[in-house]
Structure formats: C-alpha cells, structure tokens
C-alpha cells in the first residue's frame, strides 16, 4: 500500500458522535486525499490537501472536516456521525495532483448505528 496506513481499520459508532480517521504516509508526498466508497457510487472525493494546512473540498464534503498539520498525517473528522456516513473510507496520496498516480491505503470500514 505504498507506505500508507489508516487507523482505525474498523470502527462502529453511534449517530451523533464525532469520529476521527487518520491517514499516515511515509512517502513524503505533497498531496493527500480522502474518499468514500459506496455501492453504486464508486470512489467519491471528500476533501484533499495540497500541502501542510492547505486543504480543499471534494464533491461530498458536507458533514466532514479535515486537518493536515504535518506532511505525513491527514485527519478526517465526522463532526456528528450519521447513518448515511456508513461507508468504507480510503486515503490516497500523490506527488502532485491530476497528472500523477494516486496510491491508496487499505481503507477504514465505518459503521454508524
């Protein structure tokens, strides 16, 4: 998984609670991404980062926030989890955006009850 780890790998939580997922890379890549993957939708971009403290929204950013205080870590927070946020979450990295390959982590399976 190209030096990318995600934690936790599995989580069950209750509606209304905050949840933070962590992505850690050892590749020193500038760009980091958070996606969710659901049946019938493929990979949908939540947020991405193009450097420390530099982030931007993706197509499904509502209900999510991110932070990147170090090159190697990108955090995804569900401020108040809802059942619609039950999904598999993938982190990805790339040296640059657009014209470069993205490499994916192993995923976090989140269940919101």
């Amino acid at each position, binding site marked *: 998984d190209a030096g990318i780890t995600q934690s936790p790998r599995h989580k069950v939580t209750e509606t209304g609670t905050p949840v933070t997922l962590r992505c850690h890379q050892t590749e020193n890549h500038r760009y980091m991404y958070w996606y969710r993957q659901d049946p019938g939708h*493929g*990979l949908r971009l939540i947020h991405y980062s193009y450097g420390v403290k530099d982030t931007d929204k993706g197509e499904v950013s509502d209900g999510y926030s991110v932070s990147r205080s170090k090159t190697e870590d990108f955090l995804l927070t569900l401020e108040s989890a809802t059942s619609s946020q039950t999904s598999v979450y993938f982190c990805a990295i790339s040296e640059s955006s*657009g014209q470069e390959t993205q490499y*994916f*982590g192993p995923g976090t399976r989140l269940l919101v009850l």
Partner: protein
Amino acid sequence: GESVGLHLPTLSVQEGDNSIINCAYSNSASDYFIWYKQESGKGPQFIIDIRSNMDKRQGQRVTVLLNKTVKHLSLQIAATQPGDSAVYFCAEAPERNTPLVFGKGTRLSVIA
C-alpha cells in the same frame, strides 16, 4: 470490500482466456488515465497508466488502449488467472492540478 461489488457490471472469463474491460470517460480535455484493480477488502491498486499522446501502452500481461475520438479506454488482460478476479476502475485527470475522476468499475470474475 465485498459490498463494493454490488450493482457493478460483471465480466466472466474462463481461466486462460483474454479479458477486455472497457471504460468511457467524460472529459475530452482529460490527458492522463489510470487503471486500478481492487480486490475484496483492499484498497485500489495501480495497474497501468497512459497519457493522451499515446494510443497504447503495455505492461506485464496488461495492455491499455486509448481512443480519444470516442473517449474510450480499455484494459486487456492476457491469459487471465484466478488472481485477476477483482473490481477494475478507470480514472481520468480532467486538467492539471485537479483530482482524478474515477469510474464506477467492472467486476471481473475468472472461472477456473
């Protein structure tokens, strides 16, 4: 992992045969394309890429073909093996410094 495959088009291929997986992309300005493989319970894995100044690129047992006229991308897998069973996605780069756009994927099922 396994729930990702619901509602996807499926291609069933006999072991040893060649597989062709197709992808239609949306943006005529896209100039970089990637194929990913995703096995059950794992993250997408890079297979091969191609830039728009090429029509064909070969890797180990895989070939990607690009037809810009009809905005079509295909992945050919030679001598398909059981380990090739997975969901395959294409992705396009619409313009420089914008994130990739992913297709929904095709499930490849290899019959032994």
